[in-house]
């Protein structure tokens, strides 16, 4: 082995790759710009259309309003999204607070609510003023649930089936499904016989909701009506208790209040799932193009013969190329992590930044360990890809051979999203899966609990990488590989 020859091959191949626009596209542009842009666009588009849908008035058809006339009128009144509600929703949107977030904090402690509001720059007196306007001056408790109900009432047009179009019970469901499918209505409901009497007589009225599961509009209308009915139900219970002189705690013997402990929150959880997956995937993608160019590319250009007659050991040639491909994989992985971290810091991903009141960050030590964990996996990718590339007769053939591998790789890297899969001694020996799970633990802040596992992973992946490199060197000496066809 000659370090001078390896350095010569490495220098030339690196220069070659850095001048290749297609390689740079995969190596730099994709991780730095495309991933954040794609994620930003996806989240923004999702939020945009969800907001658009929430502003659309959805028709809720009441099949038998005569069974509960008071309830029907109350539902009609409350289904209308008022100007005050819209104003409050806009105020919250300006501070990046969405309905889901408020719903999540429905039963949370005042401390969590206060923390969220102060993090988003909301001033108490301002919020109280907005709430007073939208509630018409009524007293409203500053809980997530109460604010959500006020700011985001379901936008429903509750109408009666006056023409008795769906009166025939035998054909009702079929006709309703067709009406929902053609968007004449979003959902429908009926009350049990004499529902009003049952409500007034302290009984229980049944409300049946008809909706189409595959329709977003139908699902939204159903959920909105369920919320309204729960709200109304709670108020009826309150009136019943007052009539009997019972305290409002009578029907709430247990009040549950989850308290979030300091430490990794939802955002950390999401990022610790997403980052390992993307790092592994982009380490691979970053290595693909240089590997193809440095192997099959030599054959296609007709430069392989000249290299083979140069006085350089095949091992040195392979090592020089292998180091460039490994470096490309590492740069791609590093840029992916950096661009995602920076984008998150800049608040580019609306949905992720609203996911929780916590923040995602990691120490220099954790970053260094993550990089160290990724190195042997990049080596495995580089050696494997070079072997396939050297075996291929052309660029096209190499691409065809590598594409299925890419699909195969997505599965083990996806393990970071699977709930309940833990890093144990057995998994430490499974390539790709081990590093994905180890990265997940590092990003969740559990590095100290897994130092033994991480040591074993580093050792096992280093052994695999060495074996793969040895295999690539052996492969490169085979005439049947170099002179196929």
């Amino acid at each position, binding site marked *: 082995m000659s370090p001078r020859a390896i350095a010569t091959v490495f220098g030339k191949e690196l220069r070659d790759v850095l001048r290749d626009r297609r390689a740079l596209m995969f190596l730099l542009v994709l991780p730095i710009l495309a991933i954040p842009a794609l994620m930003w666009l996806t989240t923004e588009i999702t939020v945009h259309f969800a907001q658009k849908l929430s502003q659309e008035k959805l028709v809720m058809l009441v099949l038998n309003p005569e069974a509960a006339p008071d309830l029907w009128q109350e539902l009609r009144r409350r289904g209308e999204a008022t100007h005050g509600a819209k104003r409050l929703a806009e105020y919250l949107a300006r501070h990046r607070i969405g309905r889901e977030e408020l719903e999540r904090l429905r039963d949370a402690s005042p401390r969590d609510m206060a923390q969220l509001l102060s993090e988003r720059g909301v001033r108490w007196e301002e919020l109280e003023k907005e709430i007073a306007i939208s509630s018409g001056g009524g007293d409203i408790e500053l809980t997530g649930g109460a604010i959500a109900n006020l700011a985001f009432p379901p936008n429903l047009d509750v109408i009666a089936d006056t023409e008795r179009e769906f009166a025939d019970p035998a054909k009702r469901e079929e006709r309703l499904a067709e009406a929902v499918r053609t968007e004449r209505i979003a959902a429908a409901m009926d009350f049990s016989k004499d529902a009003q009497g049952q409500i007034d007589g302290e009984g229980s009225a049944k409300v049946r909701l008809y909706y189409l599961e595959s329709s977003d509009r139908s699902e939204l209308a159903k959920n909105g009506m369920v919320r309204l009915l729960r709200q109304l139900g709670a108020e009826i219970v309150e009136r019943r208790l007052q009539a009997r002189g019972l305290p409002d705690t009578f029907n709430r013997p247990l009040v549950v209040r989850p308290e979030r402990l300091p430490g990794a929150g939802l955002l950390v959880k999401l990022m610790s799932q997403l980052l390992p997956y993307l790092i592994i995937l982009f380490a691979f993608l970053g290595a693909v193009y240089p590997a193809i160019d440095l192997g099959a590319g030599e054959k296609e*250009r007709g430069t392989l013969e000249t290299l083979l007659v140069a*006085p350089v050991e095949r091992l040195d040639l392979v090592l020089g190329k292998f180091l460039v491909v490994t470096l490309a994989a590492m740069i791609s992985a590093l840029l992916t992590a950096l661009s995602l971290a920076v984008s998150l810091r800049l608040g580019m991903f609306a949905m992720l930044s609203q996911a929780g009141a916590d923040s995602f960050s990691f120490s220099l030590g954790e970053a260094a360990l993550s990089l160290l964990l990724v190195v042997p996996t990049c080596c495995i990718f580089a050696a494997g890809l070079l072997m396939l590339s050297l075996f291929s007769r052309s660029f096209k053939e190499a691409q065809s051979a590598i594409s299925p591998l890419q699909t195969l790789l997505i599965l083990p890297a996806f393990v970071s999203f699977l709930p309940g899969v833990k890093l144990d001694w057995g998994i430490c020996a499974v390539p790709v899966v081990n590093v994905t799970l180890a990265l997940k633990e590092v990003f969740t802040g559990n590095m100290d609990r897994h130092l033994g596992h991480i040591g074993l992973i580093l050792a096992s992946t280093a052994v695999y990488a060495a074996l793969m490199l040895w295999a690539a060197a052996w492969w490169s000496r085979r005439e049947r590989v170099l002179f196929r066809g």
Partner: protein
Amino acid sequence: MSGPPLVIAEGLCKDFPSRRGQKVRAVDGVTFSALGGEVFGLLGVNGAGKTTTLRLLSTMLRPSAGEARVCGHSLLREAGEVRRCIGFLSAATGVYGRLTAREMVAYFGRLHGMDDRQISQRTEELFGRLQLEAFADVRCDSLSTGNRQKVSIVRAILHDPPLLILDEATAGLDVLASRAIVELVKDCRSRGKCVLFSTHRMDEVEALCDRVAIIHRGRLLSCSTLSEMRARAGGGRIEEAFVAMLGEAS
């Protein structure tokens, strides 16, 4: 005027596996020697075994049987030393499109263990001789086919090898580019180097070769001087002698 033998091939054989799992013998017991200061031509139809023979002698392929000594080094045991003393050029030889002509040549110079000063001196000299100065810092993918082949010539002889192996190196080239190669061959011969030269162009054989070996179906049919070949054809042209020999062998 000939020097010491720089190539001594003894019973070289090369088998390739066929798709049916059997062996196909591409080169079958080829024996010849080529001397310093000599242009040694290899003639044969397509698929005769010329390229495989040259690939064996340049260590790209390992012989299935037989042995050769190239510049005094064993093909089997001293492949690295053999590679140091050969320059190789074929019609299929490509260039690195994203490197400039100078960078491409320097890369191979370094692989041959030359230092930067040697590379620079030799590059200037050869670029001047082949009129490549104006293209030295142009990326190879912007060069014409002829100039690319000239860059390949410089790459092949930068380390001043005693043995030059040319495998149909003029195929597909225009007159000027072919002439550059022909001049190179003449220059090498005059400086006592050995040139192994495979071609389909009989005019080049007549103009350049001192001795010619005819390979047919992997076997060496004959190895003779041009005048001996002409004599066999009754004083006719080399092409007629070649066709007649193939006819006899078939």
